[in-house]
């Protein structure tokens, strides 16, 4: 979303670089020369027939054409997208991603997704560029234990999304060798400076507010004129972009203030409060921060009659003797013409703050420009300076963050024996369509051999540190993964067998940390069949907070909860998009 916010694709296009959207819905939007209409399901305004037509018509223009005779069933459409994008993933030199969270204390980035397109971009290209809004930073690793539970529940109503990737810089021999992080301000520090409006920066883009909004439901996402539609867009866009344009000045009014959004918001953004605050900014003007500078907005034009009516009503209501008891005695409201005349443009005007010299028209001069000639100020210093100034009204870090944040929430849900925890893991894995097997350590080799044979796998990829005994009896050809293995070679392998670092019972999640028995991140992504071996009960924990304690943020982590999936076509769930379409888990104990 951040890249759409700044128009990156268009800018790249102008430089002769073609950027391919890889999320299924974003692909539909891009191929359809369309605009997104929902934060989580950007092509929700397209039905399956339209998507079929777009794929059949456009895919050939961009690369691998849609298969002949493509029907409109979501599974077939998702498969067409898989084939179309696979060739691009295998040869792309540069991947661009966003991130859902960034952890300050460890320098870790987090991507939460369903389809596996994110994992492709994060692990296959040689260069990774992540463009992330600065509001995505959380102070500590431990904070993720809250957000990794909150986000999937509020966005897709899942216990856990299929894939979560975390990475901290680059890892030798695994993933991109060059990683660039672009920290995006683009109006965020200005928003931070507003003590009422800044709560909008807490948004984790779950889209729960869109899903309950009666206005969004009827007006549709395009009406919001921004990549951020719905209630959150109505408070975010006029803050990031300012209220100058007609659309941005109208967005704060795109709500009946029914409060359904606030009720479902997992990060408690009081959207109605901010909407009213922004309405005030539009009609009354007042101090705001623009590009780091404090300016005073004049009331917007085009509201003169409304303003006069409000003033008249205020006068009448605060002088009840003048109009009681009969309405006939209501005084005439001040005529609209008594107000200063001006063009009716419906946009706000900027002026300098009172007491500052300057012309009639605003000229926004950034602090760094004014200081030019004295010393060079880097964008880093500029943004940090803006953040400091924006938070001038906020008390300092006393008590410290760790003391200030309440951690009295449940560390796990329910009281279970070790055995019950393992059973819960099996149940939740199966619930998210992983195929679960249970065997003893002695039977593991035979079980694996049987599974590979049942799958018809002729080749099986083996991470360097996998216990050789596990695959001692399989008939499938063992293929070693080396640093030199190309994505194309991985793509030709039938199956991959790995161990895991730890598994989470409550969410049905297996976590890989790229230890030698799990191998590089890409080997559990490109092949279509992944078998993961979990040693129970040693490798099983109950909950997300418990797993965070066992994981090393410095290692690249992949959280897997079932096969990759998408609901981007008419919200009809299809399992298997870019990641392995079959996930089998063996619980050994």
């Amino acid at each position, binding site marked *: 979303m951040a890249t759409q916010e700044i128009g990156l694709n268009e800018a790249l296009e102008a430089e002769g670089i073609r950027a391919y959207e890889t999320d299924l819905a974003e692909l539909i939007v891009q191929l359809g020369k369309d605009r997104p209409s929902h934060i989580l399901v950007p092509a929700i305004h397209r039905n399956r027939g339209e998507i079929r037509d777009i794929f059949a018509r456009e895919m050939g223009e961009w690369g691998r054409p849609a298969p002949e005779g493509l029907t409109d069933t979501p599974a077939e459409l998702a498969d067409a997208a898989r084939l179309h994008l696979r060739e691009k993933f295998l040869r792309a030199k540069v991947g661009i991603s966003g991130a859902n969270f960034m952890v300050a204390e460890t320098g870790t980035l987090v991507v939460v997704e369903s389809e596996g397109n994110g994992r492709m971009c994060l692990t296959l290209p040689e260069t990774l560029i992540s463009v992330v809004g600065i509001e995505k930073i959380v102070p500590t690793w431990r904070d993720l234990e809250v957000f990794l539970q909150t986000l999937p529940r509020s966005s897709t109503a899942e216990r856990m999304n299929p894939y979560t990737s975390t990475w901290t810089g680059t890892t030798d021999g695994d993933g991109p060798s060059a990683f660039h992080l672009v920290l995006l301000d683009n109006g965020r520090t200005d928003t931070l400076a507003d*003590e*009422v409006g800044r709560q909008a920066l807490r948004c984790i883009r779950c889209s729960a507010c869109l899903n309950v909004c*009666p*206005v969004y439901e*009827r*007006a549709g996402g395009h009406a919001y004129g921004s990549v951020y539609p719905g209630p959150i867009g109505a408070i975010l866009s006029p803050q990031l972009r300012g209220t100058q344009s007609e659309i941005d000045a*109208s967005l*704060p*009014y*795109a*709500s*009946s*203030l*029914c*409060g*359904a959004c*606030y*009720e479902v918001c997992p990060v408690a953004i009081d959207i109605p*409060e901010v909407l*009213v605050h*922004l*309405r*005030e*900014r*539009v*009609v*009354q003007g007042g101090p705001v921060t623009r590009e780091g500078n404090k300016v005073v907005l004049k009331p917007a034009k085009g509201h003169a009659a*409304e*303003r006069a009516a*409000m*003033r008249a*009503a*205020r006068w*009448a*209501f*605060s002088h*009840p*003797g003048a109009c*009681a008891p009969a*309405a006939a005695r209501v005084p005439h409201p001040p005529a609209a013409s008594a107000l200063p005349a001006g063009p009716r443009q419906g946009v706000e005007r900027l002026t300098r703050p009172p007491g500052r010299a300057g012309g009639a028209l605003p000229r926004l001069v950034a602090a760094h420009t004014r200081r030019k000639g004295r010393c060079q100020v880097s964008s880093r210093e500029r943004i940090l300076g803006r953040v400091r100034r924006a938070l001038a009204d906020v008390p300092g870090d006393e008590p410290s963050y760790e003391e200030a944040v309440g951690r009295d929430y449940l560390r796990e849900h329910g009281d279970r024996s070790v055995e019950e925890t393992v059973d819960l893991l099996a149940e939740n894995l199966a619930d998210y369509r992983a195929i679960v097997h249970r065997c003893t350590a002695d039977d593991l080799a035979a079980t694996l051999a049987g599974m590979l044979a049942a799958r018809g796998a002729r080749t099986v990829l083996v991470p360097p540190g996998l216990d050789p005994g596990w695959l001692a009896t399989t008939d499938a050809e063992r293929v070693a993964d080396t640093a030199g293995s190309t994505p194309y070679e991985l793509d030709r392998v039938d199956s991959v067998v790995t161990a895991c670092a730890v598994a989470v019972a409550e969410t049905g999640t297996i976590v890989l940390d790229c230890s030698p028995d799990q191998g590089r991140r890409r080997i559990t992504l490109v092949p279509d069949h992944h078998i993961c071996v979990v040693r129970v009960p040693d490798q099983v924990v109950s909950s997300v907070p418990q797993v965070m304690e066992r994981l090393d943020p410095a290692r690249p982590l992949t959280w897997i909860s079932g096969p990759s999936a998408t609901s981007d076509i008419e919200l009809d769930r299809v399992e298997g998009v870019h990641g392995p379409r079959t996930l089998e888990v063996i619980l050994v104990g």
Partner: protein
Amino acid sequence: MRVALFLTCVNDTLYPDTGRAVVSLLTRLGVEVDFPMAQTCCGQAHYNTGYRHEAEPLARHFSDVFGGYEAIVTPSGSCGAMVRELYPRMGERARAEGRGDTLAATLAPVVPKTYELTEFLVDVLGVTDVGAYYPRTVTYHPTCHGLRGLGLGERPRRLLRAVRGLELVELPGADECCGFGGTFAVKNADVSAAMGADKVRNAESTGADVLCAADNSCLMHIGGTMTRLRSGLRPVHIAEILASTEEEPAV
């Protein structure tokens, strides 16, 4: 207890029957109700449209008029929420603008004493059976500010279930806004009307004779929609149902 009726400007102008119903209901329950003649408007329309500064004199006026009472009862969820939720916020904003604590201090006394009617009945008077009689099939629409602002919860339904002769039927999509939203209905009329039409169709699907709510501004929007859709339903304020008795039926 010195109880004042805050009728609200909308009721005073358009729905005086609701005011009469509240007085007769509370009188029947042994409450002496005062009606301060100087009362006007709580300032909600100003505040929610972005004219907070214009709303301040109205809030101060409200506080002047009602400050001396022990309880202020209003038959409007949204006006009740204005006083309870937004008056404190107006005080905070004035403080943040460097205007000191005066506004906050002026408004503070009326905030905890203001009750929406059903809240006053259930929480303060402790009654759910108010001795009412209303032989109709009724469906209840919980208005947004009553539901999510004041958290009225089951109170109105408990009161309605205790009314003799009344059959209460559940409204599908009850929690969804009717589309009024004050000036929203003017500024985004198409969306507002679409929401109103859905509300009325849901109400019709219940087979009820009456759609009841605890806020006449919402009922105005819903009632207007009913008229345009030629629906057989009638919008009725909960106070009028609770005031109705076998001796003096409202139907």
